[in-house]
């Protein structure tokens, strides 16, 4: 377990809904709902946080939802209990997933890989636990390829990463590096906020 990352998100947990529950949630709600509408089969969801994303899940799914922060998972309990389906919420680090290879049909992430300390290794773990042909569906913010946005996001990252996420992650490229085949990228804001659809090749 990455204790430094866990402490950081435990500190943030108390005010997380206050900061993100109106603006960011309304801005991104439609895009998240569209991404999560693909849910089917045995699903792993990262990162649960306080459970704000549960509102955008389709009903009647079976979901294992993990987060590195026990305080976040505790705050998510009322939303987990209210979901019309089955959510098993667990405290877990993506680097140390205890699942056997080929366990899940799909993995979903929501603003997760801006904070995972070793993103390629984390994505490789997801690759392992997905079945051949399994889908990776990500809603993420990343760095930009375009000036001056890229410069500003590089400048912001040393500050933002102390209290929350990094702003300059190359998540799309990291998904490829981890071995996934990317099938679709939808940009929601500049080339920064995006949905990434990828899959484990079915012929492995």
């Amino acid at each position, binding site marked *: 377990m990455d204790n430094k990352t866990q402490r950081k998100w435990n500190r943030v947990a108390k005010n997380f809904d*206050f*900061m*993100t*529950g*109106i*603006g*960011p949630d*309304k*801005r*991104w709600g439609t895009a998240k709902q569209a991404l999560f509408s693909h849910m089917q089969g045995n699903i792993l969801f990262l990162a649960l946080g306080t459970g704000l994303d549960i509102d955008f899940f389709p009903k009647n799914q079976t979901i294992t939802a993990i987060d590195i922060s026990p305080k976040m998972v505790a705050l998510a309990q009322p939303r987990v209990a209210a979901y019309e389906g089955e959510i098993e919420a667990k405290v877990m680090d993506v680097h140390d997933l205890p699942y056997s290879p080929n366990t899940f049909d799909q993995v979903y992430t929501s603003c997760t890989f801006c904070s995972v300390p070793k993103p390629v290794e984390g994505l490789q773990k997801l690759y392992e636990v997905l079945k051949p042909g399994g889908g990776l569906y990500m809603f993420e*913010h990343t760095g930009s390829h*375009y000036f*001056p*946005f890229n410069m*500003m*996001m590089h*400048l*912001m990252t040393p*500050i933002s990463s102390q209290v929350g996420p990094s702003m300059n992650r190359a998540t799309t490229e990291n998904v490829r590096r981890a071995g996934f*085949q*990317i*099938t*679709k*990228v*939808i*940009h*929601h*804001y*500049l*080339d*920064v*906020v995006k949905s990434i659809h990828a899959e484990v090749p079915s012929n492995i």
Partner: protein
Amino acid sequence: MEKRPYFIFGDLLSNVFLGSLIGLICTWVFDPGWGMFSAMFIGMLLGMGISLVLGVLLFFRYFGAMEVMIPTMLTGMLVGMFVAMGSSMASLSATTGVKIGALTGLIVMIVTYATNHLLTKDIQEF
């Protein structure tokens, strides 16, 4: 492109307000005693720092994360540079600083909307 009036208002408010405030502060901080390049550089950092902190504290909760932070930091950077440089060459009035800040915030918002339209119009399929 964002078409919801609530968020268009939020984007306009955050950029124009922070641009005006940073313009005002830069007219107080910088004067012709400053070297032009040092004023421009420090003004840029000051503008970005103020917009980052106030953008998060005042606007993030209500109007979004990246959609607030990216354009307001660009506004802060440009206003800091322009007004600090101007004040170091010839003392600018507070009113002029506020006007430059507000106009820069408006232009940054329009340019960001146009760039966003270009970058989000196509879905990349592989």
